[in-house]
């Protein structure tokens, strides 16, 4: 069987001159749970975003199920994107919208623009939204505002949104980096479940090697935009670890507990200042 994703000589140089990817080639097989590790800035996020072309690579090719993603036009790229789900470190939900409409937005790629503008989801999409919310255990919160949920719950909404696409591939960009250890495992277990039960191929970047060993079927380490390791998770010993993370690195089991508090957006801050009367009037009156 041909690989689901085939990446060849991928290079990405940002306008700032940063060489995020420096010749990456790899094949991703169907059904894999591929974990990307590496230091911050090693190119994990860029590699993930080149697969669904949220980032345009400078050179090289990405083939998804026989389709050249790097050469696809606007319509073709949208057809590829809707077959690839994605979840994010900051969850990237529309915070002011309800959980339900966030989940429903996973179907946008399959629905016409007028349906979006008229807010007329199909009956089957509504049913699917509740089914997926039930799967991640938050159907009761369907009509809450997305930002009223805890970080772990928001990430589960993100998973439900991606599942709406009925994806063949799931990209996860540090999905648990903003979560505490206990919540991290609950989110990772949902990813494991969709990988095992639904047969969805998962490509997931992670900070912690312990999580990579526990959930990955294959680990790829990036260093300075190149592949530094490609193999089974348990093949990463002390020596390999130092190669990937540098001589001074120490392995930790799972990081310090992090706050789930989300930063206020600039608009929220401006609104609050305006309500408090502390906003500076630009008219000078």
């Amino acid at each position, binding site marked *: 069987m041909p690989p689901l994703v085939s990446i060849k000589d991928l290079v990405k140089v940002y306008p700032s001159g940063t060489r995020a990817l420096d010749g990456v080639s790899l094949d991703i097989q169907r059904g894999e749970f591929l974990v990307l590790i590496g230091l911050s800035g090693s190119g994990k996020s860029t590699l993930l975003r080149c697969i*669904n072309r949220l980032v345009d690579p400078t050179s090289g090719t990405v083939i998804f199920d026989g389709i050249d993603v790097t050469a696809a036009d606007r319509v073709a790229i949208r057809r590829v*994107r809707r077959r690839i789900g994605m979840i994010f470190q900051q969850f990237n939900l529309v915070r002011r919208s309800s959980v339900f409409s966030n989940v429903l937005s996973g179907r946008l790629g399959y629905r016409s*623009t007028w349906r979006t503008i008229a807010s007329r989801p199909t009956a089957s999409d509504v049913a699917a939204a509740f089914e997926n919310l039930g799967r991640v255990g938050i159907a009761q919160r369907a009509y809450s505002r997305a930002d009223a949920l805890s970080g772990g719950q928001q990430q589960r909404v*993100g998973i439900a949104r991606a599942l709406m696409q009925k994806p063949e591939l799931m990209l996860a960009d540090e999905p648990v980096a903003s979560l505490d250890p206990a919540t991290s495992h609950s989110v990772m277990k949902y990813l494991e479940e969709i990988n095992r039960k639904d047969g969805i191929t998962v490509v997931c970047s992670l900070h912690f090697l312990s999580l990579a060993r526990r959930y990955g079927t294959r680990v790829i380490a990036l260093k300075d935009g190149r592949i530094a390791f490609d193999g089974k998770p348990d093949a990463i010993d002390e020596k390999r670890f130092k190669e990937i993370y540098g001589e001074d690195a120490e392995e930790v089991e799972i990081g310090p507990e992090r706050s789930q508090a989300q930063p206020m*957006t600039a608009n929220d801050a401006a609104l609050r200042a305006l*309500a408090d009367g502390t906003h500076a009037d630009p*008219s000078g009156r």
Partner: protein
Amino acid sequence: MAEYFTARGLPVPRELQQNPLTDWRKLLGIALVLLVLYVGLQITAIDTGRANVEYAVGIIRQLFDWDFSIMSPRDEFETYRDTAWWKMIETIFLGVMATAFSMVIALPLAFLGARNIMAGNPITQAIYLVIRVMFTIIRSIDVLIVVIVLLVIFGPGNAAGVFGLAFHNIGVLGKLYSEAIESIDAGPLEAITATGANRTQVVWTAVLPQITNPFISFTIYRLDTNVRLAPILGLVGGGGIGTDLFQSIQLFQYGAAGLIIFMIVFTVAAMDFISAQIRKRLV
């Protein structure tokens, strides 16, 4: 104290190096302020010698002896449209109409003046720059000056007032709207794009929910400000209740002037309160 630092080979903080009484920078600063104040007094020649306290007290008394005859038609040629309460309503709507007109123009321009929307190619970036400079220039011309200029076109009256107020407001609202668009969270845009949605769907689902509340909030805030400015317009011929206030003072009708001032103060305070309450709920 300074020895503590020198003994340890550390640089001595500037606060410890200088005696504040002999610090020439501080003394120069004080001298400069005094000089400006002295020169200012000479130039402006403020003369309080002609103030007549007894006369002033008399006028202030009259200001509170309200003349309620202005609240109804005074002769057979006047209708309710000539009464003070109607003029007050008219003035409030000068502010409302000015806000509405400027909103319709500022709304589309704001998208062209938002850096994150216009990023990408040099042409759109140039448009962004032109729009923002235009907003700044418009904003820097005071409302009263715009109204005076518009008198040439429309003559004295509500038209000059409304359009003068609206013109200035385009600059203010445009800037506020643009900044609201610039400060949206880009994360949801990326996520919705990743689902395979087209550009219109992305804007509709991820951008609009983020900007509606700031837009409503800024618009109500400017409505409040415009209603506050509207009574002043009459002083330069921009219509509204300000015209009546100006006339009653020139005709020494202080009882009428006092009542009009009270109505304006009451209206502005009420607007201020209502607008603050609405904006608080929008956060």
